[in-house]
C-alpha cells in the first residue's frame, strides 16, 4: 500500500474524527454518556432549581388526553382555571393537579393565534401562577419549565427577548414557493438568481429585476417579500410589481411547492435532537429560549429564578429554540378565554368516539413503525460492528504466553 504524504488519508482522518464525534459508533456512545455528566441539562444542574420549582409547582398542572400526557397546564384562577396549549388537546382532557388530584376538564376557550386554550375543572383554592413581565428576564436569564414535580422538567436561558412574530426563519411547510435568491436594493428587493424550472422562471422573472410589491403590498426588505410569499399557498397566483431596466411592470406568478431538498435541509437539521411541536409557527408575539422541551411539555409556566411566570411555553420549534408567549400578552386574554367570548369552535371541542378511536389507532401504527425503523437501524449497526470486529480479530497476530 502506498501512502502519499499528505494523502487523502489525512483529509479522511480529519473527517473521520469528526464522524466519530458526530456518528453513532460505540466510542461515541461512551463519550455521550460521560459527557452527559458535564452537560448543562444534567440532573445536578436541574437540582439547583429545586427552590425555583417549589415556588411554582403548585401553579402547574399536567394535561392528559385519552390517558396520555398531552401538555402541561398553568393555574390562572383559584377556582379551577387551567391555561394550556390548544393544539395539543386531542380528545377529552383530564387535568392532574400538583396535589395529585385528577379531574375531568371542560374546554371553555381557545385563542387560535397564540394557540392558548382555557380548561375548567371543578376545584377550589388552587394557587394561581404569579406573573412577571418578560422584560424582567432579559436575554441570558435563566428560565425553568416547571411541572408538578419537586424539580423542574428542564432549564435554559432567554435567547431572544419577546418579539413580534408571523415571519419565520424557515417558511412554514406547505407554504408557497417562487424559487428566487434575493438581495436588498434601492426601493425593493433585487433578484440575484432564479432557480431553473421554478415558478419564478415560468412566470418570467429575471435576474436583476427589483421586486417593488407583492399582491399590492410594498416590499422594501427581503423578509417582507418572503413573508408575503410564505403566507400564500402553492397554486395561488400573486401579482408582483417590479422594476426592470428602468421600467416598472407587473407580472403574475403562480406559486409552486417548495422542492423537497430545499425544505429538507433546514428541516432535517432542526429535527436533529428531538421532536418538535406540530404547531410551532404564527404566534403574534413570542419569547425565544434555549430550553430543550418535548412537545407535550408545552402549555405550562416558564418561570424566572423567583418562580414567577414570565411566559407560557407554547412550542418546541427546532434544535436550538423553544417559544413562550410572554406573560404580558397572556394576561389580557384571560378574561375573554374564561368568559366564553373566545368559546372553542365545535370542531375543536368534540370528536366522535369512533373518530377518536380511529385517530388513536392511526397514531399507534405510526409509533410502532417508527420503533420498528429504529430497531432495524440498530440491528444493521450491530451487524456492521460485528463484521468489523470479526475482521479485526482475524488481523490480530496470535499472542504468545503474555499476561
Amino acid at each position, binding site marked *: 500500500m502506498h501512502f502519499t504524504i499528505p494523502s487523502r488519508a489525512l483529509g479522511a482522518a480529519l473527517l473521520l474524527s469528526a464522524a466519530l464525534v*458526530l456518528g453513532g459508533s460505540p466510542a461515541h456512545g461512551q463519550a455521550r454518556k460521560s459527557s452527559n455528566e458535564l452537560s448543562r441539562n444534567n440532573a445536578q444542574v436541574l437540582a439547583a432549581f429545586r427552590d425555583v420549582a417549589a415556588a411554582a409547582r403548585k401553579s402547574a398542572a399536567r394535561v392528559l388526553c385519552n390517558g396520555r400526557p398531552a401538555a402541561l397546564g398553568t393555574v390562572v384562577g383559584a377556582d379551577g382555571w387551567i391555561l394550556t396549549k390548544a393544539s395539543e388537546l386531542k380528545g377529552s382532557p383530564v387535568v392532574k393537579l400538583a396535589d395529585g388530584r385528577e379531574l375531568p376538564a371542560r374546554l371553555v376557550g381557545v385563542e387560535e393565534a397564540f394557540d392558548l386554550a382555557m380548561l375548567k375543572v371543578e376545584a377550589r383554592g388552587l394557587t394561581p401562577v404569579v406573573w412577571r413581565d418578560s422584560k424582567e428576564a432579559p436575554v441570558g436569564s435563566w428560565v425553568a419549565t416547571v411541572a408538578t414535580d419537586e424539580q423542574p422538567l428542564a432549564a435554559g436561558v432567554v435567547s431572544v427577548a419577546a418579539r413580534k412574530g408571523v415571519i419565520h426563519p424557515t417558511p412554514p411547510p406547505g407554504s408557497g414557493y417562487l424559487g428566487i435568491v434575493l438581495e436588498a436594493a434601492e426601493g425593493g428587493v433585487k433578484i440575484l438568481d432564479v432557480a431553473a424550472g421554478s415558478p419564478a422562471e415560468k412566470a418570467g422573472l429575471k435576474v436583476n429585476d427589483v421586486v417593488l410589491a407583492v399582491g399590492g403590498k410594498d416590499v422594501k426588505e427581503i423578509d417582507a417579500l418572503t413573508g408575503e410569499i410564505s403566507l400564500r399557498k402553492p397554486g395561488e397566483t400573486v401579482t408582483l410589481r417590479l422594476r426592470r431596466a428602468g421600467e416598472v411592470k407587473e407580472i403574475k406568478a403562480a406559486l409552486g411547492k417548495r422542492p423537497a431538498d430545499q425544505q429538507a435541509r433546514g428541516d432535517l437539521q432542526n429535527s436533529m435532537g428531538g421532536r418538535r411541536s406540530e404547531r410551532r409557527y404564527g404566534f403574534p408575539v413570542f419569547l425565544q429560549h434555549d430550553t430543550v422541551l418535548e412537545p407535550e411539555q408545552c402549555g405550562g409556566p416558564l418561570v424566572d429564578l423567583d418562580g414567577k411566570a414570565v411566559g407560557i411555553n407554547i412550542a418546541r420549534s427546532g434544535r436550538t429554540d423553544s417559544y413562550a408567549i410572554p406573560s404580558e400578552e397572556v394576561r389580557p386574554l384571560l378574561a375573554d378565554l374564561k368568559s366564553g367570548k373566545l368559546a372553542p369552535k365545535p370542531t375543536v371541542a368534540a370528536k366522535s368516539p369512533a373518530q377518536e378511536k380511529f385517530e388513536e389507532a392511526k397514531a399507534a401504527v405510526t409509533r410502532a413503525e417508527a420503533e420498528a425503523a429504529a430497531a432495524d437501524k440498530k440491528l444493521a449497526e450491530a451487524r456492521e460492528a460485528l463484521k468489523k470486529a470479526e475482521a479485526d480479530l482475524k488481523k490480530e497476530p496470535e499472542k504468545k504466553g503474555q499476561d
Partner: protein
Amino acid sequence: MVARHALRIILLALMTASAFFVPGARADEAKSAKSPELPAALVKPAPDGVEDLRAIQKQVRSVVDKVIPCTVNIRAGRAQGSGVIVSADGYVLTAGHVSAEAGRDVVLTLHDGKTVKGKTLGANRAIDSGMVKITDAGPWPFAAMGHSADLKKGQWCVTTGHPNGYVKGRPPVVRLGRVLDGNDNLVRTDCTIVGGDSGGPLFDMRGRVVGIHSRIGGPLTANIHVPVDTFRDTWDPLAKGEVWWRPWLGFEGDVESTNCKVEKIGKDSPAEKGGLLPNDVITRFDGKEVKTFGALKTLLSKKKPTDQVEVEVQRGDETVTLKLVIGSGKQS
C-alpha cells in the same frame, strides 16, 4: 524506570515555566492573571442552588451584553452564515465553509440590522476555519480572542449566531452550555447550534471567543466548534487569503515500510522545489526524529502553508538538510 518518568515530567514543567517568561508573552500573561476572578459558582462542577444560579446568570447577562454587538450575519451569494468581529478594523472569524473562496464580495448584517460590505479572505477547509474582512470604514465593536487550549471539560460557555439565517428584527440568538470535550481540531459543547449558525462564535464566561461553530451531529450534545487557537496559529495565511484543505508537501512513499523512504516526487510540489529526491530517507522533520510516515503525517498536520520546515534526509551515505516550504493541498 520510575526515576526516568519523573525526570521527564520535571523537564516538561521547566519548559512550561520558561515559556511564561518569554519577554513578549509576559505582559499578556500578567494581564490575564489580573483579570477579575470568575464567580465561584461558575467554577463548581454544578451549581448548588438558586444563589449559584443567580451568580451564573449575572455573568451570562454581562457576557451577552458584550458579545452580541460583535456577532454578525454573513451573506455570500446564496449561502448565509454567522461570524464574529475580532478587531477594531473589521477582521471577522467565520467557518471555512462560509468564507469558502477568497476575494468574494459579502454583505455583513450587524446585530442592529445595519448592513456593511466585506470581502472573504482565507480558509482552512480541513479544519473549517475562515476569515472575512469588513471593507467599510470602522472602527467596529469587537470581541477578544481567548485560548481554546485552556478550555476545561464542564466549563460554562455562551453561543451567539443566526440560527436558520438572518431574521429581520431578531438580534443574534443566545444559547448557554458547557464544554464537553475537544482536541486540537475541535471543541464539542451542548450549546445547541443549527444551519445559519455556522461561523458564529463560542465564548468563555469572560466573553472571549474560544471557538467558531462548524457542524452538528444528531444528539443535542454534538455541537462542534473550531478551536480559536487554530485561527491564531494560521492568522497570516488566513489574512492573506490563502485557502487550503491541508498542509501539503507532495511526495509519496510506502506507508508500511520501516522508514520514511521517498519514492515519488510530485511535479512543482513543495517537495520538488525544496530539493527532495526519490530514495531520500527522511530522518528528521522540524527538528524531530521521524521513523514512520505516521509520525511524519502527525508532525506535518500541525504545520500551515508558508511555514518553512527543516527536513533532514539520508541520501546514500550523506546526511542532507533541506528547507521545505509547506504548501496548500487542494480538495481531496
